[in-house]
């Protein structure tokens, strides 16, 4: 097994927290390696509803979370502007909802410093014509939406700029622990199957709901209790701002406009599994609850469902929680479990990813005796350094037309307006991506046809640029399986027709099941 010189910190997990942590540590001058067993932002980060919380959702029951959210909301809007859309949010009180909640919401928001303003019903309806006639009161708050893949990609890029290394599709398969210290880590490249041992001075796990498995490699018991949340993606936006139900937070009470779609969420089912099966009952529940706020949700086309696991931690099993930073996330120092140089970050939410990274990096630096301040709240990411402009939905339309200069748009993915040039450029920069990586980077295949036409085109471009011969069909199969998985629980109406067309193309015409 090859061995290479060590790193100051090995970060495990390439979600928002892991990428943010790697960036933070790298900016403080530490040599970091980030390993992710899949693509960046492939796990929980890429499976959330897209809401950049104002904190209003927590203002009544969890003042600390509300405080953190509004502060981080303002920071993320600034440092990651191009990935944030300033949609604003509405809390909608419907006839029959608890009478006392609006008063508590306003008081909680004021206490946390979250701008909240009551709108007349007429004004709320002007802004959101599809709101239910049952609307009784409406409150505007500074919710926004955030596109997670771009956010993570920018964090990763910044980390690399500050000297960090990042390896995707690389799994941590073993840890060498001697005398209460992690000395080395065994990494497996999932593409080539090659293994490699790296020396590490410190181990920071930001593996989300996998944190228990990472800890077990070091002989540490860490009990995670993943809380699965199911979401339904609607084909078009049903609102232009985030719509929340004005009652104590619960299931199925939010509608988030993100990119060209609206996402209805969500549920909370605790289950320790990698492969959560979404049930039709859940979907029906979410759609019914969403339709209470926006009746069109029950009639319009749903294009996909997905579930993400909240990386919740079950402290009942844990004896050594080192420091409770807030009720929403925790930095666990495993010195309490007998491993001196190992920390896990658990819990939390995407809105506070940067703060979670900061708290973790603070803890790592304290243990390593590094005296450097966190700068991630001040220094913008990626494009935000040049033009701190928020995302707007029409951007792709305008861009396609300007690029085309009067010619055909040359689209590979028609639904999400992804061009051949975008795909080629991505393949050049990435190496040999899966088509699924193009989805996260470019939104390819995310639209209503769910890969019907772009899959073949993207595979063709990929094969031409990175010939693989007989293996060329594999990316197509992998991608379509994943797309179809998200379609099965909503097999009705327009999406059922779409699904059938896709089956005709790939199963009947191209006989993909019988191809080599």
């Amino acid at each position: 097994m090859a061995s290479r010189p060590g790193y100051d910190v090995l970060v495990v997990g390439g979600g928002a927290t892991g990428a943010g942590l790697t960036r933070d540590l790298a900016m403080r001058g530490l040599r970091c390696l980030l390993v992710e067993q899949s693509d960046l932002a492939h796990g929980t980060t890429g499976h959330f509803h897209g809401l950049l919380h104002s904190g209003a959702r927590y203002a009544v029951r969890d003042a600390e979370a509300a405080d953190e959210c509004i502060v981080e909301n303002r920071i993320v809007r600034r440092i990651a502007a191009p990935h944030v859309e300033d949609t604003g949010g509405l809390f909608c009180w419907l006839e029959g909802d608890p009478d006392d909640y609006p008063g508590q919401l306003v008081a909680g928001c004021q206490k946390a410093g979250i701008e909240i303003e009551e709108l007349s019903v007429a004004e709320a309806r002007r802004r959101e014509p599809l709101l239910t006639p049952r609307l009784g009161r409406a409150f505007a708050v500074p919710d926004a939406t955030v596109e997670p893949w771009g956010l993570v990609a920018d964090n990763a890029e910044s980390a690399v700029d500050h000297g960090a290394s990042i390896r995707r599709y690389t799994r941590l398969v073993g840890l060498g622990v001697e005398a209460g210290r992690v000395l080395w880590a065994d990494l497996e490249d999932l593409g080539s199957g090659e293994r490699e041992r790296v020396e590490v001075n410190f181990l920071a796990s930001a593996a989300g709901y996998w944190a228990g498995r990472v800890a077990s490699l070091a002989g540490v018991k860490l009990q995670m209790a993943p809380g699965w949340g199911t979401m339904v993606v609607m084909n078009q936006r049903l609102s232009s701002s985030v719509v929340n139900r004005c009652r104590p937070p619960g299931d199925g009470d939010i509608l988030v406009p993100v990119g060209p779609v609206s996402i209805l969420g969500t549920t909370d089912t605790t289950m320790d599994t990698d492969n959560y099966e979404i049930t039709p009952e859940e979907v029906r529940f979410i759609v019914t609850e969403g339709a209470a706020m926006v009746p069109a949700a029950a009639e319009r086309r749903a294009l996909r469902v997905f579930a993400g696991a909240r990386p919740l931690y079950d402290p009942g099993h844990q004896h050594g929680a080192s420091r409770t930073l807030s009720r929403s996330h925790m930095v666990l120092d495993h010195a309490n479990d007998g491993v001196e140089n190992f920390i896990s970050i658990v819990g939390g939410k995407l809105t506070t990813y940067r703060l979670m990274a900061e708290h973790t990096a603070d803890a790592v630096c304290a243990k390593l005796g590094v005296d450097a301040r966190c700068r991630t709240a001040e220094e913008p990411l990626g494009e935000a350094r040049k033009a701190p402009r928020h995302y707007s939905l029409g951007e792709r339309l305008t861009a396609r037309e300007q690029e085309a200069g009067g010619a055909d748009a040359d689209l590979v993915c028609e639904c999400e307006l992804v061009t051949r040039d975008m795909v080629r450029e991505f393949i050049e920069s990435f190496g040999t991506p899966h088509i699924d990586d193009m989805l996260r980077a470019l939104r390819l295949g995310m639209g209503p046809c769910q890969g019907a036409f772009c899959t073949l085109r993207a595979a063709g471009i990929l094969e031409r640029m990175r010939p693989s011969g007989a293996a060329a069909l594999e990316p197509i199969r992998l991608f379509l399986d994943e797309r179809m998985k998200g379609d099965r629980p909503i097999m009705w109406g327009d999406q059922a027709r779409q699904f059938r067309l896709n089956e005709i193309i790939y199963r009947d015409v191209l006989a993909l099941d019988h191809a080599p």
Partner: protein
Amino acid sequence: MSEPILFNVDEVALSADRCIKCNVCNTVCPVLPVTDLFPGPKYCGPQAQRFRSGHPVETWVDYCSGCGACSRACPSGVRVAELNARARARMFEQRGIPLKNRLLSRSETLGRMGSKAAPLANFGLNFGPGRVVVERILGVPREAPLPSFSQGSFRRRFRRIPQPERPNLRVGYFCGCTTNYYEPRVGEAAVRVLTRAGIGVELPEQHCCGLPFISNGDFKGARKLAEANLKALLPVIRSGKRVVATSTSCSLTLKHEYREVLGLYGPEWEELAAGVYDAFELLRELAWQGELELDATLTQRVLYHGPCQLRSHGFGFPAADLLGTLGGIELAESGVECCGSAGTYGFKGDKREIAFRVGQPLAARAREHRAEVVACDSETCRWHIQQLTGLPARHPIELLDEAWSQAERTGD
């Protein structure tokens, strides 16, 4: 005034949900194959729709001619052309409506002014330097076919046409601006044909249907006209008379565009839509019921082109059905979706070349049939077709009128 439904929330806007990307719309679009300036109905319709949310709308939607072939062909029920028309209006709302569009949409005002000073206006329009001025101001290329103003409106001439003494049926005639100001002969032919069929014709108060406003992106102006027409025509319909039109684009506007494009929904708009008929639609109905004898002859080689707006009515080709029964006629159908003109599309500078290319199959068809005349129910199409084919283009009701007049003269 009825409040128009908002841009992105009504049935038409949400019909974009039904698109399964099958591409049928792109295969029937007459503009897509002849230019690189237009990315096609699928792109501008259901695809772009998902990205439109109050932000600047792309401009290439303006290259959609609005012929509606996509909406007719869509097997999933997406109102592609209607989405495009709305996007174009939104674009002009954001960028301002160009002067040429403003002027071109005012067919009623232009007509009223022009016909008052017809000889002078026509001299101006037919005279080289005059066309240069028109090109500069209206953006209408000097080669584009422009109609001549008529001396004296159709409304004036209407009174001189004798009505049947005891009509079987009474209708209100919606003649449209073109008939009133440029081509009164079409109106005169229509009234002669209808009265001969035993139908009493009155000419109710009416205004431009608003289609030129819609296609030039001025929905506010179009809605005003729609309201005025509703007010003028509902009493006619409620008195038990049908409103009959000879321009299939005007009638489509009254029946379809008011609701689906302008978003004017409500029972009164449905009543208007249900009460409006195409003249040939009515005549064919009478013929089918055995109440109309068409015993006449027309010894001509005729190419019939059902214009795109007529096709959107979804009632087949009633004019061709009736012309086909005339003795001696050699009738062929064009078999193309659109001549290229599609209203004022073919009159706007940069679109003329496209309209000309779209029209080539129609011209070829006319040559193949060795046609002596092209029959078409829409005015702007006729003007365009005359240029395309070098043949006279006439409203089918003029041909029927001619056949019947001949029959009368020969004492049939």
